[in-house]
């Protein structure tokens, strides 16, 4: 038994994290995200040059052929660096095509989806679940009662940008004329449930990365900010709040690792483990970001302090594909079943 990342997975996470922190620091991303004409394509391209778009795509179509855990490791790094862009939705939509598409659909779409030359967006429902990166997508994967359908971008697709609170991950409303949609013939409700479970893991991983960054930023601040002639990190009140923050954040890592591994290994209860990880870590993320802002004092309430970017990402992670309370009610029957 070993419950740890492989050296390759470790390297993937470190590489993505290092790339974001050095090339695209949060403050610069935020400024660019507010600029009207900057769609941050260089970040998308830079991340895909590291192989991100195709991590879980079949090798025959140019992907790396890896699993959910590898995706999740990348997602944690994106969360840590507050990466802008639509990777989350792209990954989920691409998975649906790879697993549910016909031979011709796969041949048409997967090479571009693997390299990132083609962007996919996931339209989960018409009940308000936002479409991540709806504007700028080349192809839309729509969940239906029977599975998934697919439509290329074009006049049949209407995208309405919503004024999202998370500037790093814009949200859209997407409507598609029925005539433009064609089914993914091998997709069914099981595949939809699988894609949702992968989504739960990837959101949990993003939330873990973001919460960890909130902890790291707060610890760093406590080691530089002085009041009453000493570092605030010397005050026990601050130490204890940081220790509680570590307690809130750090044990979550194994929770999402386990869920990712369970999906890859087809373990029983994998979907419930994914929902549990998502509810626990996304919940913790909001609390962690709040605590981190408090720990930064007046500076924490300013636009200049990076932490608000994480607080807003936490709000998206909390809500997307099921809020913590709904997910808990959903898996209660499984968790509480008599042994």
């Amino acid at each position, binding site marked *: 038994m070993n419950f740890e990342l492989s050296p390759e997975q470790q390297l993937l996470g470190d590489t993505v994290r290092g790339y974001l922190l050095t090339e695209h620091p949060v403050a610069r991303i935020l400024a660019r995200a507010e600029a009207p004409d900057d769609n941050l394509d260089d970040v998308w391209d830079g991340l895909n040059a590291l192989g991100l778009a195709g991590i879980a795509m079949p090798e025959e179509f140019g992907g790396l052929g890896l699993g959910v855990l590898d995706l999740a490791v990348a997602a944690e790094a994106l969360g840590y660096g507050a990466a802008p862009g639509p990777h989350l939705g792209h990954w989920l939509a691409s998975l649906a095509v790879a697993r549910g598409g016909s031979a011709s659909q796969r041949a048409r779409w997967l090479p571009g989806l693997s390299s990132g030359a083609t962007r996919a967006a996931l339209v989960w429902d018409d009940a308000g679940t936002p479409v991540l990166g709806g504007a700028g997508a080349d192809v839309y994967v729509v969940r239906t009662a029977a599975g998934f359908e697919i439509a290329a971008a074009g006049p049949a697709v209407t995208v309405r940008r919503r004024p999202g609170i998370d500037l790093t991950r814009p949200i859209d409303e997407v409507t598609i004329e029925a005539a433009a949609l064609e089914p993914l013939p091998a997709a069914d409700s099981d595949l939809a449930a699988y894609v949702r479970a992968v989504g739960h893991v990837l959101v949990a991983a993003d939330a873990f990365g973001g919460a960890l960054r909130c902890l790291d930023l707060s610890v760093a601040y*406590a080691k530089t900010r002085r009041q009453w002639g000493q570092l605030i990190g*010397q005050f*026990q009140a601050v130490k*204890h709040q940081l220790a509680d923050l570590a307690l809130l954040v750090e*044990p979550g890592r194994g929770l999402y690792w*386990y869920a990712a591994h369970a999906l890859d290994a087809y373990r029983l209860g994998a979907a419930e483990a994914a929902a549990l990880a998502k509810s626990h870590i996304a919940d913790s993320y909001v609390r962690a970001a709040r605590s981190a802002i408090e720990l930064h004092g007046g500076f924490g309430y300013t636009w200049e302090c990076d932490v608000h970017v994480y607080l807003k990402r936490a709000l998206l992670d909390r809500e997307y594909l099921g809020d913590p309370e709904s997910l808990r*009610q959903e898996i209660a029957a499984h968790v509480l079943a008599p042994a």
Partner: protein
Amino acid sequence: MDLSEGPEYERFRGEVRAFLDRHWQPDRAADDDYVAKFRRDAVAAGLLYRGVPESYGGSGQAPDPLRAQVVREEFGRVRAPLEVGGVGTALLVPTLLQWGTPAQREQFVPRTVTGELRWCQGYSEPDAGSDLEGLRTTAVVDGGEWVINGQKVWTSNSMRADWMFLLARTEPDQPRRAGLSYLLLAMHQPGVEVRPLRQLTGSSEFSEVFLTDARTPVGLLVGERGQGWAVSRTTLAAERSTLAAPETSAALFASLVKLTRRRERNGRPAIDDPGVRSRLVELHGWIEAQRCSALIQASPGARSEGPQRLALLNKLLHTEIARRVSEIALDVLGPAGLLDPRATTRPGDERWLNQFFGSLGVAIAGGTSNIQRNIIAERGLGLPRDAQGAQP
């Protein structure tokens, strides 16, 4: 990542089961002689006291947390006795194996692992709890003996203990921790007086221990003079890891779910209440996080920084889970939570008050939660020491 046990561990599990089939009869669990023989057989089979050398009554196995876990699981499944409980086996034995002389190990380890010798821990004093370095009990050499004077407090199981391991000030000219030594002391002697303390539960499981010219041979100093602090750290580290076993949480959670199934709330089982369900699943998230964190710590790469920081969180995580369990239990108990569980020999659901009170003990024993937070902040997060700078 690979969570399968692998053929080696599957084979080992099979061996443990076969051993239990041959050697364990659950209907004889109350027969002390039978249990003692069972433990001897389990040691001979390499299953119990895996970290204790064979020459001192253990089975001398290479450290392997997964094998240890297989043993706990399989023994637990048929309710077979594991190692003798208490601070003697959990704390003193590891300390003597690291610091003791051959003579000390010879004298104490074999009889402690069989349960023949029972131990208590003499650390805390009325004015030295979290600030253990400030303790005042003194020990001076008089002829071939240490003569010990002082008072220990909150000393668990001291009424039944044969021996105490304690910290005393032997180097009065040295500051704080540098003046402390680690001594072993026989409890049954005129200089040792045990006065039971009544706990908030009403029962007496710990005591004050008054030491008035209590005597112990000079050969029962463990480590060097003035090294007591370092020696005692071994025991505290052992205690923190034993306090945090995730299996305890899983068993507690299963019991709590059963409680919510049999207690009623608004005329139906509490488990059908959406609020109760939500809180149970939230608690389950914490318990799963604890289990997964333990898996990370049991993995081959656990010496790296991440798992080390996780290890510092174990005690506080365990405390947090115990508190959450107690809150849910209290809510579903309703008026039954007003009954004293000690009032009858077979209490009903009010026995959950024992867990409710015990969860407070978890937060205090072996280093209070606030001391844990200092340790996490200073050692785990690298924050500067505060003005007192007195953390272990």
